[in-house]
């Protein structure tokens, strides 16, 4: 029922996590593990691609909050890309656009990591 996956891959020194399915209180621990593994191997430049994510609840949003400070303390960031409107609306409702960079295209977020001053 609660089908969800989070798969990380590397692109130009940036880690891209592709989310798929339904991110709720049941599946959020899977995403926590993915973040923990990346941080455990000192990888702090992270782009999360939401293209295949159908649904998110506050438990899912909580995962991004749980890791952001540690990641930014290590000169990294979590950038969020390719959200469907229904998913973006939930982030928007909770004020995330003020605190996270959200891009339409994955390549824009990766470029921002490559050229942070632009």
């Amino acid at each position, binding site marked *: *029922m*609660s089908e969800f996956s989070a798969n990380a891959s590397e692109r130009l020194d940036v880690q891209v996590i592709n989310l798929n399915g339904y991110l709720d209180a049941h599946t959020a621990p899977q995403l926590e593990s993915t973040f923990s593994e990346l941080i455990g191997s000192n990888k702090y430049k992270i782009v999360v691609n939401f293209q295949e994510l159908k649904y998110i*609840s*506050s438990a899912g949003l909580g995962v991004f*909050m749980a890791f952001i*400070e540690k990641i930014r303390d290590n000169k990294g960031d979590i950038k969020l890309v390719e959200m469907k409107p229904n998913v973006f609306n939930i982030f928007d409702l909770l*004020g995330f656009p*003020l605190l996270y960079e959200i891009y339409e295209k994955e390549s824009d977020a990766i470029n921002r990591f490559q050229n942070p001053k632009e």
Partner: protein
Amino acid sequence: MQSSSENIFELKVKSSTHYLGEIREFIQAAALENNIPEKIIADVILSVDEACTNIIKHAYHSNPQNDFIIKLFFSKNEIKIVLVDYGDSFNLNAIESPNMEIYFKQKRVGGLGLYLIRSLMDEVKYKSIKGEYNELILAKKLN
């Protein structure tokens, strides 16, 4: 109120997050049967998911042996959702909506569910009869 023209659906669930997907599908199917617009269905699904997650984690402390009940009432003007559990109660009014910037600075995780429910629903009421049951009533207007 308008019980003669209400469509009622009920689901009894074990208190495990494992069943959240099933709960969402139950709401989706009932709402489609009642021709509810997609945006409203999405708001109701998320609100009920958040409320059920709170029951599972806070009323029942994630003990899967317990049950709670979800009732949906579809009438001409609104969807009413009643969630009944038999676990620990809470004080709805004592839980304030967070200021998100302060919230982030405090590194708090969780507690956002009630904020979402209050944002998405038109009515949120809570009743607790000590030693008997807790009842959360949500309503969403249809117009």
